[in-house]
């Protein structure tokens, strides 16, 4: 008995983690998948109902708006975070004085919750007392900035706040990437007469391909899951103009008693994330095994 215990101790120690994740991640996802094929309303029902919920989902105007918003947000969020992140990383890489202080400033939003920063942005962007008033008081009398309460533009306020929160993270990733390149490569290129611009554009940035890939995956992942920021900033409004899939899911599940429909929307989100993550994990593991 003691021998057996000693021999299997490592596996026994592993058991809680594997058990918990097996139940609370895989088991729960399967349960949600099953429920998405039933006609559950307030309470889960277990009779299968086919793809009805998915048909309902894709016929729902609110869901289509959520998906539209997600695409707009993801595209802009990706572009701005990556461009700003790269610019900051390259500029910081030029033996800048006070680099530490600047880096700390660029990255501190990552330490704050979206609720905290959303509260701040909501106040800054509100038309009555925020930025709009500031410019009017400065003498720009016709200045208007009412994106937060404008159906067409409200989604872009979420982009502004989201980019502000996450661009520093991309900067950190790229800075770490650039710092890991050996000096010799840059020196050799400079001896061959390459200017600074050429060194970055032709040599260093192409070497950053894995960092691009990582940033892409992580940013897409953040944007698919974005929920807190929208709740804090617009709550999906004005109307439903800034609703997103994560918000759609929780509202259907906990406010509208559409358990089956919310499960279907959750599974759509799950599949979107899986489509990005599985190739990523696969390539990461391959890289690690190749080492």
């Amino acid at each position, binding site marked *: 008995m003691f021998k057996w215990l000693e021999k299997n*101790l*490592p*596996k026994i*120690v*592993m058991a809680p*983690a594997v058990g918990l*994740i*097996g139940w*609370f*991640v895989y*088991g*729960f*996802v399967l*349960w*949600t998948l099953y429920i998405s094929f039933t006609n559950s309303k307030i309470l*889960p029902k277990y009779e299968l109902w086919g793809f009805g919920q998915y048909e309902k989902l894709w016929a729902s105007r609110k869901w289509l708006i959520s998906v539209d918003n997600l695409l707009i947000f993801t595209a802009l969020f990706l572009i701005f975070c990556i461009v700003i992140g790269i*610019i*900051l990383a390259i500029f910081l890489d030029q033996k*800048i004085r006070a680099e530490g202080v*600047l880096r700390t*400033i*660029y*990255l*501190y939003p*990552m*330490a*704050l*919750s*979206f*609720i*905290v*920063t959303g509260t*701040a942005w909501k*106040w*800054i962007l509100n038309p009555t007392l*925020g930025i709009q008033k*500031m410019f009017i*008081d400065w003498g720009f009398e016709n200045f208007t900035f009412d994106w937060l309460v404008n159906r067409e533009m409200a989604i872009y306020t979420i982009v502004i706040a989201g980019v*502000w929160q996450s661009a520093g993270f991309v900067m*950190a*990733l790229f800075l770490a990437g650039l710092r890991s390149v050996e000096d010799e490569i840059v020196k050799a290129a400079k001896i061959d007469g390459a200017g600074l611009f050429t060194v970055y554009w032709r040599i260093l940035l192409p070497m950053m391909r894995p960092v691009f890939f*990582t940033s892409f995956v992580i940013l897409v*992942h953040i944007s698919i*899951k974005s929920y*807190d920021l929208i*709740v*804090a900033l617009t*709550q999906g409004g004005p109307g439903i103009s800034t609703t997103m899939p*994560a918000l759609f*899911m*929780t509202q259907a*599940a*906990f406010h509208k008693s559409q358990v089956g429909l919310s499960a279907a929307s*959750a599974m759509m*989100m*799950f599949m979107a994330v899986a489509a990005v*993550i599985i190739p990523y*994990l696969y390539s*990461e*593991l391959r890289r690690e095994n190749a080492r």
Partner: protein
Amino acid sequence: MQDNLKSSSYQQLEQKSKYTNMFLRWFLYFVLILFASYFIFPLYVMVVTSLKTMEEIRQGTLLSWPSGLNFDSWAVAWGGRGYGAGDTFLKPYFWNSIKMVVPAVFFSTLIGAMTGYVLTKWRFKGDSWVFLFLLFGCFIPFQAILLPMARTLGALGISNSIVGLVLVHTVYGIPFTTLFFRNYYVSVPTELVKAARIDGAGFFKIFFKILLPISAPIIVVTVIWQFTQIWNDFLFGSTFSFGEAAPIQVALNNMVLSSTSVKEYNVDMASAIIAGVPTLIVYVLAGKYFIRGLTSGAVKG
């Protein structure tokens, strides 16, 4: 003579490139400082707004300096106004968050350390699949587990309680803590462990005598990561708790959204700062470890 000419034109060229370089340098600093002000702007606005009276807010602009250090709205945000119904303030929820964060960070870190240890030093057949199995948990969108989690917490009788939130955060922290410890222990030479095993040291003795003493950096990274994630969580907090059991982010959101007659932005900003200050302090004091957590394996939830 010719030599002289050559060198003077060379000097000219050098002079020119010196000026371009100087210009470039200035441009560099200009852009960097411009972005720094964009990043610092909301924090600045939060702080000055929290120190103003509502009268000052209506008359001044976002950027205007407060007339004095007026901490009244901080006091209201933290402890309320002292009358009964409708007087929401952050103090009890701040403690809720502490009571939730401490055990959740402790348990998830402990489990992560153990699994990371086994996965690297007591390898078994199929262990890399087990790691992948756990790792995938970092990425699932939590919407896919919210419904069954709500039912499970209800069945266990811990819905709308801090115990329930501790359980949720512990479980969904395990993939990250495992990843951190596993990646750290991978770089510890296995020979050390093998030698200790030959000397007859057992599973726990090796952990406590060999691995734990060198684990300080990764423990710091993991604790900071988990602390920040759990403190800042809103999805779980708002789904699985309400009323008195809510953590601070949920309370903050409720406070800001509550539609009392007059919107008090100074109190809102003070509340937001109170809710953000713990993680901000940790970030400023231990930024190095925070960044290591962020970029560690470049996995971020």
